[in-house]
């Protein structure tokens, strides 16, 4: 039984993953999850693991722009897709607007769930920039946070969405003039 369940070295496979716009070659077992490959093979440790069964959402990344639980996906399944992690949100030391909103609203305490919420919101706002606060709360309910009580996470995402819409409106105004 042990011999049957064990994975031998021969079953390694070569994967090419597109992560944050860079191509990465990884030699790994087929059973290795996307989050483990991101974290431990590519050393992109910003994405976290909270439950390994798809509930808590700490491992949320974008796969072809859509939020995905990276603990429920094998790395092999992500070949050919565009993967984005929390590391893509800032430009060097300069935080992106969503990250700044989380800080301004105190939307994080220990910070462990935060990358998951950031990528969830990043994917969601790209799809629904006009989202209402209620819709945002609905989406925030997809992930678990144990520190904040969620209110400030909702406010941060709503604040970011509002600011983006305002910036967009200003741009349109100035073009019209």
């Amino acid at each position, binding site marked *: 039984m042990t011999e049957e369940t064990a994975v031998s070295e021969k079953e390694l496979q070569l994967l090419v993953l597109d992560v944050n716009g860079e191509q990465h070659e990884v030699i790994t077992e087929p059973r290795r999850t996307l989050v483990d490959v991101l974290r431990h093979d590519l050393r992109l440790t910003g994405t976290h*693991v909270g439950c390994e069964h798809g509930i808590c959402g700490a491992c949320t990344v974008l796969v072809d722009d859509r939020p995905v639980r990276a603990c429920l996906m094998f790395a092999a399944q992500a070949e050919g897709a565009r993967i984005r992690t929390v590391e893509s949100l800032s430009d060097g030391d300069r935080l992106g607007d969503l990250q700044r909103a989380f800080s301004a609203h105190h939307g*994080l305490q220990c910070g462990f769930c*935060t990358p998951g919420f950031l990528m969830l919101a990043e994917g969601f706002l790209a799809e629904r920039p006009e989202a209402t606060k209620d819709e945002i709360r609905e989406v925030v309910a997809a992930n678990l946070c*144990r520190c904040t009580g*969620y209110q400030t996470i909702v406010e941060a995402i709503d604040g970011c969405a509002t600011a983006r819409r305002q910036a967009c409106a200003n741009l349109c105004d100035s073009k019209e003039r």
Partner: protein
Amino acid sequence: MSQQKLVGRSVARREDPRLLSGRGRFVDDIALPGMLHAQFVRSTIAHGEIASVDLSAVRQVPGVVAAFTADDLELGDITAQLGRPLSEFVPTSMPVLARDKVRYVGEPLAIVVARDAYAAEDGLEAARVTYTTLPPVTSEEAALAPGAPLVHAEAARNTLVDVSLFATDGIDQVFESAPCVVDVETRTGRQNALPLETRGAVAHWDDREEQLVLHTCTQIPHQVRTVAARCLRLDERAVRVVVPDMGGGFGQKCVVGREEIAAAAAALRLRRPVKWIEDRKDALSASFLAREQHYQVRAAFDADGRILGLDADVVCDMGAYSCYPFTAGIEPLMASAEMPGVYKVPAYRVRGRAVTTNKAPTAPYRGVSRPQYVMVVERLFERAARELGLDPVEIRRRNVITDFPYTGVNNITYDPGSYLESLNLCEQLVKDEGWYGKQDAATAEGRHIGIGYACFSERTGYGSAAFAQRKMQVVPGFDISEVRMDTSGAVTVTTGTMSHGQSHETTMAQIVADELGLDIAKVRLHQGDTDRITYGFGTFASRSITIGGSAVRLAAAKLGDKLRAIAAARWDIDPDDVELTDGVARRRDDASDVLSYEDIADIAYLQAHLLPKDIEPGLTAAATFDVFNDGTFSNATHGVVVELHEGTGRVEILRYVCVEDCGVAINPQVVEGQCRGGIAQGIAGALFEQVTYDDQGEPSATSFMDYKVPTAHEIPDVLIHHLETPSAFTETGAKGAGEGGTIGAPAAVLNAVNDALRATGVELDNTPVTPETVHRALHLEAPS
């Protein structure tokens, strides 16, 4: 002239940039060359003698490097002690790996070390363990039943703690003659503190330092060092505990874990780095749990609703082992000492017991017994109000302590707080939003809206005196801070406390920046490294800003004295005539004459020949702080409006109002974050979360499908109003703010639920209040 103070302002968190950009460093982010991965063979039965542990097949599994049993590693046990007689406390030992007996499902029996975590789990599958099963003890009643099987042979009646702290003379007569006596029996569910980051450690032996380095996510690094050194039979110097960023703790990580010690032992044996990351299944079922308690309490009142006496029996189901360093006394002793709370209780009797059962062991969890006894006491007041026909807020008004300092029947002296003010204001906020009118309108429509309150205080800043009174062998009281300024005028400050989300890097820096007149960017906090921090007890019991923050301020003040002394010597004036502001020392009599901190540091380090004879080179200072009285009490009133839904039994929280007083709020945004997060955890305990066990001791909750952690759907927005009664004896005026939210929420929610049920005649006193219970209550005919 001087710069604006930072204390009291919501300055941006120093922690945020790295945590928001994925550049934090949590324990599972650590990778060392040649690192191996550990997992644990765990007991599949709740109670039994170990007949054999056969790891031979494990060692054949591809990728497995080693596997060890207790006999292979020969480690010392983890033993927590109270200095109480055997009649009050029975010490028991927790082996790092189970040796002769297993006492709960999930108890670690052997450690498997492999080249990666996948192979380690493959290895677990090949382990063969045989047991002689024993009947499991799975409830408090079973534990106390005559002839019950013993979880620990040395603990008769499965009782680890049995203490009767108070019994006022004549209390029986008080109850006999009182016009109103009410009682409450409450059972509270076993909960998991549930930090989103599970426990974990990375251990390696450093040959150059001749030291075991243990990276572990713990709230108590120095206590882990002590236990690791004892279990591994090393000098403490030869163990360095380093704490990386922590993904929450809430108490579960303020006890020493067996797995972190076993991982260290494996690293020592193999001379290779070993990482252990707990998976969620183990975290839910085999980690440290909390809160399963049974209260039988009665209270006597006079006809005007003034409380005359409180008589309580508390039994806490502590599971299989005493936790280190707190022991199984943590919950019963907390409840016994503090239960009278914010009320003027003239007579008090209490018996507190801890029983041991075949369930995962327990640790302190945010609030520690206070969420439970506050709930019980608040239920008693609600019930008395109903009996006496009084308004539930009015009966509290007649009983809360208003003259401070107040020494209670429990021999605790309460420092000034705003008990009555918070109660009145909370009620006013609920009234102002029109909830009483909305409740009447809903009732007329046949809907079920209820309003409930909880008024409570929370002892924070437990110093040596308070913990010594509990007779703990490890008395966690003082904290030490060291402050160092370098030649660029930047400051490094240490604390023995350990932030796991509470923003200490920000709040402690605010304190130092104010004290030294420095830009906060020039201040950097160090915590969680036993080689860098002289000593510290870590973070729990809302002690960090009260005790740690006070030590930090005192150390910074001492460094300030030295800066002033050096500057004064240069100017040949009295140090009192020098002020520190905006990063410079300035003559009070001539504001244009300044010495920058860089200038002073140059003298202290690079041109020490310029120093006066009585001033030593260097710019360092250290200070300790302890609390020698009963601590400082934060207080709050929570007001909750709920609606019960007939069809589903769902409890919907329509409004949550919190009026809190934690003295001087160093950073109001951080305090509000603590309130909201604490309230969310309190609501979780009141309505959702519970680990149950079947009659064989099998835990029900092994995934998030079974353990219902509330989401943004269930947790409401919280309106927070601050009052400020500064503490007279912390250095900043701050009181602790970490636990209050969790303490008040269950009582307020339960009172609101019962208010909504008032037409049914049903009263619910157990938590969690599940939809099934509410549904049943709503569909019962009210007894006529």
